[in-house]
């Protein structure tokens, strides 16, 4: 066999063998990876809307995914909103739960972030940040309390606290939530936010 023919044969065979091997591995792990993702979302939903029994995806576009959550007696108890946006260093992905009228944020959880450890990364910390996000009135866009206060009682209902030393990270989380809330309200007004419509389509 000439040299160039040998090169072609060897590369083709190596490519084919590894390609088929990867196809098998991909097939074997696909379901489990998807399951992990689902599980992560389920956990997050029950975290931001604690009375959740079942949840269903009712809206999805490039910037946000909305899950409608129902309690044990099958009543809609709120929406869990999965969204992301730019943080101080990288994309922050988060989820928050609202009541069905979109006037109250029940809770917030951060799913992915790469903020500075010890400073911006405190956005995942209950004590320093997340506890100030419980039960916020979001009829109007939320605002940031600066300088920070040391107890949720000292905040107005439509305010969230700043992390001292990580103002930008706190602001970014607030921006992500406010932007998605605004979009969500517009979507709801257009009547696109109902499980019935999703079932019909």
């Amino acid at each position, binding site marked *: 066999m000439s*040299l160039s023919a*040998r*090169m072609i044969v*060897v*590369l083709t065979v*190596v*490519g084919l063998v*590894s390609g088929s*091997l*990867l196809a098998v*591995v*991909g097939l074997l*792990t696909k379901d*489990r*990876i998807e399951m*992990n993702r689902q599980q*992560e979302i389920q956990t997050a939903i029950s975290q931001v809307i604690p009375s959740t029994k079942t949840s269903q995806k009712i809206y999805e576009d490039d910037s946000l995914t909305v899950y409608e959550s129902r309690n044990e007696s099958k009543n809609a108890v709120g929406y869990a909103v999965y969204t992301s946006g730019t943080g101080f260093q990288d994309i922050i992905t988060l989820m928050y739960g609202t009541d069905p009228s979109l006037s109250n944020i029940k809770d917030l959880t951060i799913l*992915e972030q790469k903020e*500075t*450890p*010890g*400073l911006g990364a405190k956005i995942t910390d209950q004590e320093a940040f997340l506890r100030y996000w419980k039960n916020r009135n979001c009829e109007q866009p939320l605002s940031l309390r600066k300088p920070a206060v040391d107890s949720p009682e000292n905040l107005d209902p439509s305010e969230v606290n700043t992390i001292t030393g990580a103002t930008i990270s706190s602001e970014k989380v607030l921006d992500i939530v406010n932007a998605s809330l605004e979009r969500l309200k517009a979507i709801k007004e257009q009547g696109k936010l109902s499980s019935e419509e999703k079932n019909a389509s």
Partner: protein
Amino acid sequence: MPPKKSLGAEYLKGLWDENPVFRQLLGMCPTLAVTNAVINGFAMGLATAFVLILSSLVVSSIKKLIPSQVRIATYIVIIASFVTIADRFLAAFFPPISKALGPYVPLIVVNCIILGRQEAFSSKNSIGRSLVDALGMSTGFILALLVLSSIRELLGAGTFLSYQVLGSWFKPWIIMILPAGAFITLGVLLGLAILIETKTKTRSS
């Protein structure tokens, strides 16, 4: 060609004399990037070991078939396949670790330790010898990552494998888990390695 070493020496050289991190300065990207916690460093070490050992086995067993003009391309395809397998496996069974390591698992493809061993060793030696060499290099790499990540996690968070080991009096040095801490720790350790090397050499001569 230098005289053949015993299999034991072939293994041990990866631990110190030719340690990929401290002596060869290879694979610096994962070494610096993921050693902010012991569990991450260890997982990265294991993933790299998996890829290195299997690639060495495959390359050494088909070395005679590969025309030298396309050897690098062939090695990369083989390495990339094992890296993808490792990446999918971590994502499927250890999602938190997969998340923490982020892009650094796919980046094992371009880790010089792996391509370096194929080019320098597996393509010229028997399957058994390549396996021993890959095992030694992997152990050396894992040990280096463990040392680095232990120091960084201990000083940067006061913990070891997420267990609090330093008391509440300890104020974590945040810099140690930031990139700067990686460079500082690696620099100090490299200095130490060279110091030990020169000391032992002067004594033996």
